[in-house]
């Protein structure tokens, strides 16, 4: 085991404070240090994932006070899986954007890399913390990094997108604080496991109000239907790799926080149905909106929202199979959507309006990028033998086992819509003629490596889905087993006091 859970937070924080100083010594360090930190986080969480699979959950207390009193970090199969996924994606995004603004602008590049690193660290913090107020702090860290990255290209549109995101984020923070205040006023504790063990004492009215405000607060990060107004603008206006980071990292953290609330913290009956309904509405609205889009990144953003809807549908089924399917979908979406964003932003690199019709005929001029974009498209709509097929299949079987036939029908209809708008783009790439004045962008070496790693993972999972099934099975069993979670966290504290 390399490192410990707290290092996944402390090291990036230390590095973030040091980067402004190191940048004065040698400018290249502002690029190298975040990469090293992200690589360390990736290796450390992967090795801890291995340790957790064999030896059970790691509970780390902080500041010397055990579970209900101090803050603790929980590294269970589920959180380890998500942390590994996020840090891996963070490293890939860093690799892709390593030469970003090189030799041009020092200050923006410094900020870009600090924010990228803190985005990943904040998202990992949301996942591994065992304390709701601490989670709120990490949601703030992630949020502020995300607003700053959205406004990175200082222009009118990106300022508008960022401001929209900022307003909604501020609203979500207040909603979260209200929910936390209600819970603390009734149960006198902020520790998740402690809350979960005492939630049955709380009056039903408070419980429902708190849950609704939690959903409002976290829903904005998780892109659920009425709260996702920021997402299309932010994805479109942020730099390409940041769109990939949003889809692969931030949204996953939001979904985790939401699911942790519903599955572990609250015992409200019918919460699953809320997830299912919200998921279905999000799925249908987003996918029908995606088909009307003319800008490539905007289309990908709506598709990303739709996929999150599908994840919530799978969680809302509520069975172990459903959770497995949802985690599988999250894994696949976290790999495929960033690939689409990275290759897609290469395709529209030199076009002004970033419209879908501007990718016409680029298949001949940018063969490698085009192939990867096509691979991503095939994978995300769920064509066999690519990764997306298996996750969609597992959602459908989970729904079928519960007899939810209407939901299966809806998912399949929506998949057809998805096929239409993705294949439209692939069709344009290969079978249309290129516009005369458009210069194809040759991808840099680091971008090629980043994209081909993602492509390779899609093929590996596609041909051999068993490579991830153990990890996913452990993670889904971990999420469903609330008593074990409570026991893990609180008994670690008791053993310390004795």
């Amino acid at each position, binding site marked *: 085991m390399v490192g410990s859970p*707290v290092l996944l*937070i*402390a090291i990036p*924080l*230390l590095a*973030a*404070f*040091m980067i*402004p*100083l190191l940048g*004065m010594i040698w400018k290249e360090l502002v690029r190298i240090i975040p990469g090293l930190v992200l690589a360390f986080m990736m290796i450390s969480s992967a090795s801890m994932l291995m340790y957790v699979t064999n030896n059970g959950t790691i509970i*780390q*207390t*902080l*500041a*010397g*006070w055990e579970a209900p*009193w*101090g*803050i603790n970090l929980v590294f269970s199969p589920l959180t380890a899986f998500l942390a590994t996924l996020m840090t891996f994606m963070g490293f890939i995004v860093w690799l892709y954007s390593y030469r970003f603004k090189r030799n041009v602008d020092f*200050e*923006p590049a410094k*900020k870009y890399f*600090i*924010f990228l690193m*803190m985005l990943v660290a904040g998202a990992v*913090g949301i996942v591994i913390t065992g304390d709701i*107020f*601490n989670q709120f*702090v*990490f949601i*703030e*860290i992630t949020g*502020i*990094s995300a*607003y*700053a990255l959205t*406004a*990175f290209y*200082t222009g009118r549109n990106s*300022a508008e997108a960022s401001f929209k995101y900022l307003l909604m984020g501020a609203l979500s923070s207040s909603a979260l604080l*209200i929910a936390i205040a*209600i819970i*603390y*006023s*009734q*149960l*006198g*504790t902020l*520790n998740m496991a402690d809350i979960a063990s*005492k939630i049955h*004492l*709380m*009056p039903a009215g*408070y419980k*429902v*109000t*708190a849950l*609704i*405000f939690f959903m409002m607060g976290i829903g904005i990060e998780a892109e659920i239907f009425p709260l996702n107004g920021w997402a299309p603008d932010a994805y479109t206006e942020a730099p390409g790799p940041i769109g990939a980071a949003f889809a692969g990292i931030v949204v996953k953290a939001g979904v985790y926080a939401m699911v942790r609330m519903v599955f572990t913290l609250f015992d409200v009956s019918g919460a699953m149905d809320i997830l299912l309904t919200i998921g279905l509405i999000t799925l249908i609205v987003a996918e029908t909106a995606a088909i009307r889009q003319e800008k490539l990144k905007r289309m990908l953003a709506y598709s990303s929202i739709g996929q999150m809807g599908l994840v919530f549908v799978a969680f809302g089924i509520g069975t172990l199979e459903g959770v497995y399917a949802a985690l599988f979908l999250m894994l696949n979406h976290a790999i495929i959507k960033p690939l689409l964003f990275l290759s897609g932003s290469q395709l529209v690199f030199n076009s002004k309006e970033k419209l879908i019709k501007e990718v016409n005929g680029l298949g001949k001029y940018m063969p490698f990028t085009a192939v990867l974009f096509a691979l991503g498209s095939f994978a995300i709509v769920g064509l066999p033998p690519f990764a997306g097929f298996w996750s969609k299949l597992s959602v459908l079987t989970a729904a079928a086992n519960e007899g939810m036939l209407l939901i299966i029908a809806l998912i399949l209809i929506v998949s057809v819509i998805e096929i239409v708008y993705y294949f439209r783009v692939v069709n344009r790439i290969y079978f249309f003629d290129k516009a005369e004045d458009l210069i194809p962008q040759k991808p840099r070496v680091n971008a090629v490596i980043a994209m081909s790693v993602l492509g390779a993972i899609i093929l590996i999972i596609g041909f051999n889905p068993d490579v991830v099934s153990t990890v996913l099975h452990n993670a889904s069993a971990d999420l469903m087993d609330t008593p074990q979670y409570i026991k893990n966290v609180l008994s670690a504290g008791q053993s310390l006091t004795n």
Partner: protein
Amino acid sequence: MKKLIVILLLAVTGYFLVDSFMDLGRTGPVVETGVKDFYLDKTVSELKVANTITSIVVNFRGFDTLGEVTVLFLAATALGGILYKRRHHVGERSVLFPSSPIVRAGSKLLFPAIVLLGVYVFIHGHLSPGGGFQGGTIIATGFLLMLLAYDNFSVSHNVLSFIESFAGIFFVLFGFAGMWAGGTFLENFLPVGTMNNLFSGGIIPIVYILVGFKVAAELTGLIYTVLHEKES
């Protein structure tokens, strides 16, 4: 129609919010033995700190404070990146108009007193109300006064960024020191001394002084950035 639905939804949420908060303090918690008694007890018996809020903020929930300090750092960094456009010229339609001689003379007199008060507040964070965040903010108001009084008053961005970075680095390093000495991150590893002494409370005053420096530097930097928008 759309607006009607929005108003309706807001009304429903508002009703439940008011309903929950109306008798939130009156009925008392359902769980009487929350974490609060433990905090009150341990603050006096183990940490020897007079200000319970300080001991919660810096010790029990020190990790949150580290996070909040980072939030402030990120916000300050982000603002510097976003505010870039027009420079406001001294004169009409500007925040930097020349101030009256009374303000100039008075601010020179007040500035050291304000900074001294800020330093006092964060050094005595573990003994009296206040602490790093409050003290830092007071110091920043002193700089705000100077910046408003003298339009040629300038603070060095490099110095501010040095203070910010070093305060943050030492905060994390103290966390690591606790890990090395006691086993968990941010654990108190210094002797706590006697209660109500200036030198007591282990690492709590040290961390709060670092927070004070950091907040002061960051807020001053923020004010400076807002007043002196860079030309693109």
